[in-house]
């Protein structure tokens, strides 16, 4: 076993009931390097990291840390060996404070057995200032933005003295600025001699940060390359096994009549503050309006009000010339409003339902799926078979449980359902979050095709590239307000980024912004 290897994994195989998640995977990570792992959804990236961290026992294979072989280890052993992991889905307890989350499992004690809260606070403050993380140890997690939550995760790892940091898709939920700040932190950590493994779907990031890259496909290692010696195109080909369009081509828009008109729209949040304030928007048919913004600045609420999931406190929503403010979700759907929700598992799917049942969700009460209160099973099935065929959903089983689909296929299911039936207005919220480049390509092409067929599309995304690639015009939200509007193509990523943080020219500081300058955490549809 080599001295310079922080991690050596050999022949790791992990089977799940419906998937071979890792198939004889080898992974070498050198001491002090930034090692990226890329691959499509379901390629087995998270799994191999969970195996390394001791969360998931492998079925076969061996693992060595610092040249020493581990067997049957648990997270506690990994932590002791200096491994820390920031998970794809954050592992934070919402109802506890930052300090409590950080020390959980390795608590400082006073008086023998009591929790030493002061010491915990102090450590958090210290680590936070050391790496410029600006965290308040007494904040409740539920009040933090996603970016800050991630920093808490990093502090958790540092608090345990990790020498190997694993970050699973750390940038998926961050703004460009936050990504840049994260990279600064990660570089500082590398300077401090720590080894970093990070997983991402974003190839630019890989090339920017990583020293070496392991590409995974179908549970196997498709190759290991050095960042200096490869290109985006090559990586994409290795990941997908074919050439990929990294940028969709977009025709000029031919906008028609206004389909969605939003005027002076406001909404009140759970704590009585305005989460939306005086929003004005217009989307015409055959046009994509992109809404950019850091998560938690009212986008969620805007979508909810437009789709009838949340009440407006003032202002109006008009769809196809009809006033629809505060109509129910069903009425909105019946008017031809389709909605791709930002959180597919929480809102977009019923996980215990079959694929076929999920494919009629929202239209289940209408003909042909239902008449006089009875379901029409034949029509539901035919519909499912058609959509599965058209959208290449896998597996091709209308009776399979939607919960068993991969993330990408779950998203495709929702897209298939919402695109079907030619909606007049499509509200697409984070339509490609966490899906792989193959699926992104598919969703983007579909959105443009819908636009060209005359649908009006309101696209909400934290992904600037996505907004810039697809939008005919762009609105930027900050603190519950629209702070800037641009014509598509007439604005650069930098300029958008600045507007998103409430800077330069944007009238900053809506009442939704907390006194400490952070945007409030978005509130889920509490009506």
């Amino acid at each position, binding site marked *: 076993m080599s001295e310079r290897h922080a991690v050596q994994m050999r022949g790791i195989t992990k089977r799940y009931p419906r998937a071979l998640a890792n198939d004889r995977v080898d992974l070498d990570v050198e001491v002090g390097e930034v090692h990226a792992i890329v691959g499509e959804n379901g390629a087995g990236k998270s799994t191999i990291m969970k195996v390394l961290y001791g969360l998931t026992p492998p079925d076969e294979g061996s693992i060595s840390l610092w040249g020493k072989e581990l067997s049957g280890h648990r997270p506690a052993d990994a932590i*002791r060996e200096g491994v820390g*992991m920031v998970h794809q889905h954050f*592992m934070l307890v*919402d109802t506890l404070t930052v300090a409590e989350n950080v020390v959980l499992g*390795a608590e400082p*004690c006073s008086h023998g*057995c009591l929790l030493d809260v002061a010491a915990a606070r102090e450590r958090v403050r210290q680590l936070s200032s050391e790496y410029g993380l600006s965290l308040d140890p007494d904040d409740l997690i539920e009040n933090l933005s996603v970016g800050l939550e991630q920093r808490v995760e990093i502090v958790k790892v540092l608090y345990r003295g990790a020498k190997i940091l694993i970050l699973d898709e750390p940038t998926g939920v961050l703004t460009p600025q936050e990504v840049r700040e994260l990279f600064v932190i990660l570089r500082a950590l590398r300077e401090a001699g720590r080894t970093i493994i990070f997983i991402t779907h974003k190839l630019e990031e890989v090339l920017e940060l990583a020293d070496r890259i392991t590409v995974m496909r179908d549970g196997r290692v498709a190759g290991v390359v050095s960042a200096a010696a490869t290109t985006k195109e090559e990586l994409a080909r290795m990941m997908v096994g074919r050439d990929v369009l990294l940028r969709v081509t977009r025709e000029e828009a031919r906008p028609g009549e206004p389909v969605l008109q939003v005027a002076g729209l406001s909404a009140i949040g759970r704590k009585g503050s305005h989460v939306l304030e005086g929003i004005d928007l217009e989307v015409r048919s055959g046009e994509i309006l992109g809404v950019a913004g850091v998560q938690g600045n009212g986008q969620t609420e805007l979508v909810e009000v437009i789709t009838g999931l949340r009440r407006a406190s003032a202002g109006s929503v008009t769809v196809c010339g009809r006033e629809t403010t505060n109509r129910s979700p069903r009425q909105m759907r019946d008017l031809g409003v389709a909605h791709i929700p930002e959180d597919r598992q929480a809102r977009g799917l019923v996980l215990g339902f079959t694929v076929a049942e999920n494919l009629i969700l929202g239209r289940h009460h209408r003909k042909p799926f239902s008449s006089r209160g009875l379901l029409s099973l034949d029509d539901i099935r035919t519909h499912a078979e058609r959509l599965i065929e058209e959208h290449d959903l896998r597996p091709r089983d209308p009776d399979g449980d939607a919960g068993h689909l991969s993330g990408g296929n779950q998203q495709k299911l929702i897209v298939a359902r919402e695109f079907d039936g030619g909606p007049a207005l499509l509200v697409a919220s984070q339509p490609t979050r966490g899906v792989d480049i193959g699926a992104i390509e598919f969703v983007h092409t579909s959105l443009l095709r819908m636009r060209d067929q005359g649908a009006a599309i309101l696209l909400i995304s934290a992904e600037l590239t996505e907004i810039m690639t697809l939008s005919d015009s762009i609105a930027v939200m900050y603190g519950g307000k629209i702070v800037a509007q641009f014509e598509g193509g007439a604005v650069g990523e930098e300029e958008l980024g600045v507007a998103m943080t409430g800077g330069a020219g944007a009238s900053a500081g809506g009442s939704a912004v907390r006194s400490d300058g952070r945007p409030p955490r978005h509130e889920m549809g509490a009506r």
Partner: protein
Amino acid sequence: MFELAVLDSALRMATPLILASLGGLFSERSGVVNIALEGILLTGAFASIVATYYTGNPWAGVFAGVFAGVLISLIHAIVSIVFKADQIVSGVAINLLAMGLTQFLTWIVWGSSANSPSVQGMAHWSLPEIWGPVARGVNVVISHYPPLVYVALILVAVSHVVLFRTPFGLRLRATGEHPEAVDTLGVSVHAMRFAGVLLSGAFAGLGGAFLALNTHQFVKNMSAGRGFIALAAMIFGKWSPGGALAACLLFGYAEAVQMGFQGQAVPTQFVQMIPYVLTMVALVGVIGRARPPAAIGKPY
């Protein structure tokens, strides 16, 4: 309404509820629903009487009650934590088991499946009078209620400290909110949940011991729905020891008032509904939505 006798009665009636709902609290804070409180109370009651019957020492009964509570909750722990079975199913089964088993054993031990003979009860605490006026003064406080009433009150405070001021409590609460997070930090979710469920068995078993020893005998089904009321109190008290205490006192008080003011114009049946109606009204009007531990009921 605020007659001292009624308040005393309220506190005594509340005691088994307090203990059982503290038990429920530990289990549910670790993420395991414990609908089996009723059965654990019953088991604790039975075991305390058997042990007292054979030893003549009610404190042996207390110990046996706690032990039996832990034992039967061990079944809940194994079924719902190790085997990841539905926690409510397991709880329902344990209630059934406790009902059957205690009656069956009552029959084996005493030849009647409904009643045990009377056993030695628990003497009230008191300092010897010869210690003088100080002892008399102290006795006014400590001998007013059966000993376990004081124990229950102390346990409320202890539970609060354990839950909110110790690493164990922090881990327990985190386990109920987000077990994966706890697991990733190298803390065993199963161990925390076992601790929570077994503690709940110990507390509810103690509650059962109080119930039975205070009446000096075991009677079939003597828990009489108190486990469910304790569960309601725990939810009512928003999963905190202080809240549970307050809720139990309220229920105890409502019941005591009901007992104290019967036989007047209102028919018994209506007077006896007071605590239940009160609970419903309070839940709608005053308390509103209670927020349970996020991961409750989900096997890990």
